[in-house]
């Protein structure tokens, strides 16, 4: 992927932060532009065309996720807004059970919603994870079995370390306790199977190649959920305000396209990620890999380099032509390390996440592997930490 600002050799390895638009998204956006530019809530004929496009997008997403169209909503504000709506709406829908259970490695959107719930007097319990970033199903089951639990949240796979969660076992525990399970599928949808058994789901279009700012919210029939937006009529799943209908259409079309793409490409990316996880510790001293070696997202690898400042590492890799991400505190703006890495008990500084967009070449990955050792060695020499 070529960045015009940095030239032809630059490689984007931050797919988990969001993808540029999939060609199908671009084409669908353009095609829907004329008819989708009107307010779908109005009654004149151009607006009715816009409403029909929105309906078609809803049906398409429903088919992609194997749910009913009236179980699908779209949220302006993207995956974060959809996650907030899932949590707040489910808790508001069952006010007699104010307990919220979540894993310690949820996306910050879920943690922020949980913090707001706790501040409002709700009971919140975080289920710890092991060194690989996975919850223990028995521990999760014990947490949801506490009387008064009204919602259980679980990230289907980690956007930071790639580890997939034991969703079927957690879903069974939630069903046994009569607690709805909210699955945050933002990192997984389009990359890994989304297991069944959940009552609510959220996702984010730009993580699969749709436009930014479009979140998907699914609330299965029979789930106690009320729209968490002031003044929203009962039954509405779409966030208030005018939706960008062409962007929603592009999100739906690109989701369908991505899910229909051959699995061989994900297998190819998985082999490249396995190469990164094998070669980085072999070529760079004092590196700790993060995340499950096998049960993981296919396109994402995370490691931490002892004694290094994550921000300096990102800038050095950027100068060398690679866009990557980091969970280190020095890159977060808050001076707090990634809560995911901290919950796992792995090294939080010097952290690098590489996530490969579809189409990443083996040559790109080999060049990264060839570049990294000298980048790390130079930074360690500058920091005076060689031999510690």
């Amino acid at each position, binding site marked *: 992927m070529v960045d015009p600002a940095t030239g032809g050799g630059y490689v984007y390895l931050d797919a988990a932060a969001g993808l540029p638009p999939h060609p199908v998204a671009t084409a669908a956006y353009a095609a829907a532009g004329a008819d989708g530019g009107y307010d779908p809530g109005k009654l004149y004929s151009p607006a009715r065309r816009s409403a029909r496009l929105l309906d078609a997008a809803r049906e398409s997403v429903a088919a992609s996720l194997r749910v009913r169209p009236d179980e699908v909503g779209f949220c302006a504000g993207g995956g974060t807004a959809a996650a907030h709506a899932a949590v707040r709406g489910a808790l508001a829908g069952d006010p007699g059970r104010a307990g919220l259970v979540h894993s310690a490695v949820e996306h910050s959107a879920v943690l922020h919603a949980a913090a707001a719930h706790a501040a409002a007097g709700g009971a919140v319990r975080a289920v710890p994870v092991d*060194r690989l970033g996975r919850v223990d199903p028995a521990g999760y089951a014990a947490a949801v079995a506490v009387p008064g639990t009204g919602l259980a949240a679980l990230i289907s796979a980690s956007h930071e370390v790639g580890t997939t969660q034991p969703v079927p076992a957690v879903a069974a525990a939630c069903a046994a306790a009569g607690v709805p399970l909210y699955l945050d599928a933002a990192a997984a949808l389009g990359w890994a199977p989304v297991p069944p058994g959940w009552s609510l789901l959220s996702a984010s279009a730009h993580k699969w190649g749709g436009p930014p700012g479009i979140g998907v919210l699914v609330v299965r029939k029979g789930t106690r959920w009320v729209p968490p937006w002031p003044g929203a009529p009962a039954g509405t799943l779409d966030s208030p305000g005018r939706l960008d209908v062409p962007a929603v259409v592009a999100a739906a079309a690109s989701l369908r396209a991505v899910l229909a793409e051959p699995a061989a490409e994900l297998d190819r990316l998985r082999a490249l990620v396995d190469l990164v996880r094998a070669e980085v510790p072999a070529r760079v001293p*004092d590196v700790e890999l993060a995340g499950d070696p096998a049960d993981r997202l296919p396109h994402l690898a995370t490691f931490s380099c*002892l004694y290094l*400042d994550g921000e300096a590492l990102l800038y050095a890799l950027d100068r060398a032509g690679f866009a990557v991400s980091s969970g280190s*505190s020095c890159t977060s703006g808050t001076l707090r390390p990634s809560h995911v890495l901290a919950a796992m008990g*792995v*090294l939080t500084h010097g952290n690098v996440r590489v996530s490969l967009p579809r189409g990443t070449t083996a040559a790109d990955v080999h060049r990264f592997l060839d570049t990294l050792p000298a980048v790390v060695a130079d930074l360690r020499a500058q920091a005076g930490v060689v031999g*510690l």
Partner: protein
Amino acid sequence: MTGPVPAGGAADPGREPELDCRGRRCPLPVIMVAARVPELAPGTVLRVRTDDPAAGPDLAAWCRMRGHGFLGGGTDGDHEVYRIQVTARIQAGPVPGSG
């Protein structure tokens, strides 16, 4: 602030050597600990004072990578104190991934 290292370990917390990393941000606390530990006899418990929120998980991970004992920590006013038990000299080198 360095106290004498008691023979055979440090049962008396008042005599455990201390390292004050307050005001230093990640990864400096871990680097300071890594520079200090080789000066200490095996069995010594080093007390690390820090106000860096990343220091807790990072010191625990560093101890695991280098084979030292991480004895946990607690709050002391506006900062944390972590205790690290020095193990016999361990060679630096590649560390197996946590998997």
